[in-house]
């Protein structure tokens, strides 16, 4: 299965196993712009899988209402770049519902899904990675899978979670990430990172598309610099797996964090701040962040903007040669 088929499968299972589950968003009825909802309306009915008008703020607000009333709501935002009209609903309403009502009410059964990250030709408004804005909001969970297997498991966890979740799907992986995905119902726990490659010299931390870049970097580092890298896929941005990361850094003493989002206040900043505090005496070099530039996501200069394997390798070299 590829990534979008895994997402489709997860939603199919959710709709089948939970009679209160509904899926809605722009153009989801015919399958959605990335085919994630293909066939779901035919299978589960128009009252459960339906299109909304073009109104992100309305979509999320509606989702919150559905969730509060006891329905499991999956709201699709067509591109993460369009999520900002819904920012107020997510940050001021969804994240604070349980807290402000003293646990009398909650919208935990809301999951907001959106395709994110660069795809090669997305330019300013089809390539953004906005995870940092939402990580800064207590009360929300933010999850970004790296492939088909993780997508299905994490999405089912998000849908069934009792807290509102934002599930970002790196769009470039929709067709290209193909794995042997188990067809049964399974969940992957939220808040846990995964170590993909074990190593001793440098810890590489990433999520989503960047994880695949880092795997290549680890291989390059081994071949060219004779440096053994440990690659961690964070998977959950909020909450992030503190223990796995800290243990790894204490082992290696060197860290390179990579993400597509711009440098200033990208999620790498949070990781760097926490890691330096907890592992100060274990660090052999300052923490390196390899990220997008502090510019809007560019149009034709995209290949230069992204933190590609060469820039990341440079980051590895810098920490090793410190």
């Amino acid at each position, binding site marked *: 299965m590829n990534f979008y088929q895994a997402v489709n499968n997860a939603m199919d299972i959710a709709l089948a196993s939970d009679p209160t589950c509904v899926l809605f968003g722009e153009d989801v009825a015919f399958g959605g712009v990335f085919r994630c909802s293909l066939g779901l309306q035919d299978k589960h009915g128009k009252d459960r899988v339906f299109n909304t*008008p*073009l109104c992100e703020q309305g979509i999320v607000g509606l989702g919150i209402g559905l969730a509060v009333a006891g329905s499991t709501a999956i709201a699709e935002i067509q591109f993460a770049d369009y999520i900002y009209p819904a920012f107020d609903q997510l940050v001021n309403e969804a994240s604070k519902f349980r807290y402000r009502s003293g646990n009398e009410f909650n919208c935990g059964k809301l999951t907001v899904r959106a395709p994110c990250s660069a795809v090669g030709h997305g330019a300013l408004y089809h390539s953004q990675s906005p995870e940092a804005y939402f990580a800064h909001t207590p009360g929300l969970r933010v999850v970004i899978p790296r492939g088909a297997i993780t997508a299905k498991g994490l999405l089912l966890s998000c849908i069934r979670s009792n807290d509102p979740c934002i599930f970002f799907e790196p769009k470039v992986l929709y067709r290209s990430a193909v794995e042997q995905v188990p067809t049964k119902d399974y969940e992957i726990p939220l808040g846990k990172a995964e170590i993909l490659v074990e190593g001793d010299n440098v810890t590489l931390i990433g999520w989503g598309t960047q994880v695949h870049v880092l795997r290549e970097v680890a291989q390059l580092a081994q071949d060219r610099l004779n440096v053994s890298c440990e690659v961690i896929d964070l998977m959950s941005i909020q909450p992030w797996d503190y223990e796995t990361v800290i243990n790894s850094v204490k082992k290696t003493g060197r860290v390179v964090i990579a993400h597509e989002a711009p440098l200033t206040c990208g999620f790498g900043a949070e990781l760097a701040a926490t890691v330096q505090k907890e592992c100060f005496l274990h660090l052999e070099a300052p923490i390196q962040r390899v990220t997008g*530039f*502090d510019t809007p996501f560019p149009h034709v200069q995209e290949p230069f903007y992204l933190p590609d394997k060469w820039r990341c390798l440079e980051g590895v070299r810098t920490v090793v040669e410190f």
Partner: protein
Amino acid sequence: MGVSPFSILSELLGRKSGCARGKGGSMHMYCENFYGGNGIVGAQVPLGAGIALAHQYKGDGGVNIALYGDGAANQGQLFEAFNMAKLWKLPSIFVCENNGYGMGTSAERAAANTNYYTRGDMIPGIWVDGMDVLAVREATRFARQMCAEEKGPVVLETVTYRYSGHSMSDPGTSYRTREEIQEVRAHRDPIHSLKDKILQAELATAEELKVIDTDVKEEIDRAVKDAKADGEISMEELPADIYSENLEPYIRGITAVDKLKHLNIGSRVNYA
């Protein structure tokens, strides 16, 4: 007003002769008096109201036209803009280009009220056959006159059609039939119907029109060729024109040691 086909095609390809130096692409064409397209559809409507307010304030007789589609007609910010425009009698013409589909969702399935010209609530609206060139011209003229006489704002709904998909990733056929597309092309195409009108009124002969056709085709072909041959802007422009005045010495780059020089390159068109 306006830019050459070469400039537009260049911009689509992200080349340096594009009207936004290739930095915007298809949704971001800008030139004097043309305030560009918006990635988040609907965002341009409050923008338009603001520009109209500026004209009203400056008393320069300017009128603003803000265009949006039937999909964007359901965005909340439009209604916020409509309210302010009516409240302050702004010289604004809001045009809903209703092509029947918001990407893949037909207007009937997206809007409770598909009479988009009525959705300005207290703002008067005019329904226009968007496939009739002369009708659109007259409606715009009328609306402009209304605004000039301080009787604005006004909403126009121009009904048209979209032949191809919404974007490169949309084939345009998964939510409608091919017959529907062909039917519109055969009976309601604006260029063909204008041609028929001209011929019937004997304002020109078929041969003269053919010459125009050929000339236009040539001009566009040439523009395409030139645009493809045009160069892209250099990498130094990646951190250019982010701010008007970059306060830090450098824009932060990918790694901690990357320092990018911020440049101010494009020249400002909107006000002196």
